[in-house]
């Protein structure tokens, strides 16, 4: 059995930031991640971030990941890789399996869960054929494993993930035959969308995928137009010769560890669905359990990092590493940056959704 003060689950942008913040405050931190490399999605994000300068606009995700890692290393944070957290018991015990072969029990005074989000599935006839995969799977294959999963790709979904992964597939040498979007309008940020459009990729709005065809592997994909009631219009089917269909249908917060630990949840569609209820300190309904990043509502790497810092500051303070004044001061700084990030047309919606969660948490604690 291993004792630590703060156990952080997930070494993506939120988890790394949380761990760094705790370690800076002087807490003993164990950072646990199931992947061989820390950084979470950052190491798949080879595109440049944008936003304000202080949020590292213009810097690629991989670069941010490297900086965070260097900082974590300098702070002597104990990082466990290839380590899957399989369960959380009694709000303080983590069952960790390392290298798929060795079980460890970790006892922590506080736990920060930063497990991120998982890709939504879309089902259609033939979607279980080899060659149909999540956009994230394709991204992992090209940017992490450096293997192309196919040569001619159809992307389902025109949100940021859809257009960014499409572009990255092209950078890796694949051809993107079409990007299909069920909504009448494209979903991604203009900058990313324009890049793909300039490269000559056709977009099909108000279209959906009807079927993946092939005997043992995808050989073609059939799409169909949707009317204003989202019903397929007969006779508008188009068949594309593709060997790969990627699904980019949005993300859902990965809450199973938190839910299994006993954290109450609330339902916020704008942030991806069921989310652990949490307060402005990122604390869940369990006093010792905090969350940060996409698990607390799907947003972006930059907000995930700020939320990680918040969780880190408050967890450290709860363990006595900061006095109340220090805690408030540090927390206020982060909140200021978070508010900037959540301003503007895209951020507004998320800020409202976040407020809804904070309110539901308040109701929750009043009830208890």
């Amino acid at each position, binding site marked *: 059995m291993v004792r630590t003060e703060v156990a952080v689950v997930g070494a993506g942008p939120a988890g790394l930031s949380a761990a760094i913040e705790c370690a800076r405050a002087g807490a003993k931190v164990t950072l646990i991640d199931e992947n061989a490399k820390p950084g979470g999605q950052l190491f798949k994000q080879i595109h440049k971030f944008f936003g304000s300068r202080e949020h590292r606009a213009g810097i690629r995700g991989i670069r941010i990941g490297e900086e965070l890692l260097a900082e974590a290393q300098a702070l002597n944070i104990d990082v466990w890789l290839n380590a899957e957290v399989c369960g959380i018991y009694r709000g303080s015990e983590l069952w960790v399996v390392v290298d798929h072969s060795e*079980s460890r029990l970790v006892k922590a005074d506080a736990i920060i869960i930063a497990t991120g989000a998982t890709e939504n599935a879309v089902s259609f006839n033939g979607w279980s054929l080899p060659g149909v995969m999540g956009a994230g799977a394709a991204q992992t294959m090209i940017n992490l494993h450096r293997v192309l999963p196919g040569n001619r790709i159809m992307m389902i979904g025109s949100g940021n993930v859809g257009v960014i992964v499409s572009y990255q597939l092209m950078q890796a040498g694949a051809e993107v035959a079409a990007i299909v979007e069920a909504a009448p309008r494209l979903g991604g940020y203009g900058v990313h969308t324009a890049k793909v459009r300039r490269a000559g990729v056709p977009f099909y709005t108000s279209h959906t995928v009807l079927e993946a065809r092939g005997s043992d592997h995808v050989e073609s994909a059939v799409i169909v137009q949707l009317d204003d009631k989202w019903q397929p219009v007969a006779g508008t089917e188009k068949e594309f010769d593709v060997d790969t269909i990627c699904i980019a249908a949005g993300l859902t917060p990965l809450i199973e560890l938190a839910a299994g630990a006993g954290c109450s949840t609330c339902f916020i569609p704008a942030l991806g669905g069921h989310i652990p209820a949490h307060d402005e300190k990122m604390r869940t309904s369990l006093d010792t359990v905090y969350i940060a990043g996409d698990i607390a509502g799907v947003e972006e790497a930059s907000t995930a990092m700020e939320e990680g810092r918040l969780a880190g500051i408050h967890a450290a303070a709860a363990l006595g590493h900061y006095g109340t004044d220090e805690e408030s001061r540090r927390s206020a700084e982060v909140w200021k940056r978070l508010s900037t990030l959540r301003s503007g047309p895209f951020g507004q919606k998320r800020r409202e959704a976040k407020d809804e969660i904070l309110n539901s948490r308040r109701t929750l604690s009043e009830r208890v």
Partner: protein
Amino acid sequence: MKMDEKKEMKNDKDRLICRCEEITLGEIEQAIDEGCTTLNEVKRRTRAGMGLCQSRTCSKQIARIIAQKTGKPLSEIMPVTSRPPARPVKIDVFRTGESNEESN
């Protein structure tokens, strides 16, 4: 035209929803018709979500199907009961752990 539509409907019933247990849309809709209104119930009736991935891929789709068929808001369709392990775990992981402790 009508025939074609029918054919498509039929095909749609055969569409897989739970990839692990190979449970179709038709089977899930039948369970809902028989009175299931929660993810846990659909799971226990059809085995959708009982496979190797433990509903991690299909549960959100099933929630949507329940909502569509019953009119229940998505907010009231709770996630399936979360139980450890969060990943498939080899049974002998504890033995390795033990021997490691001894050698430390």
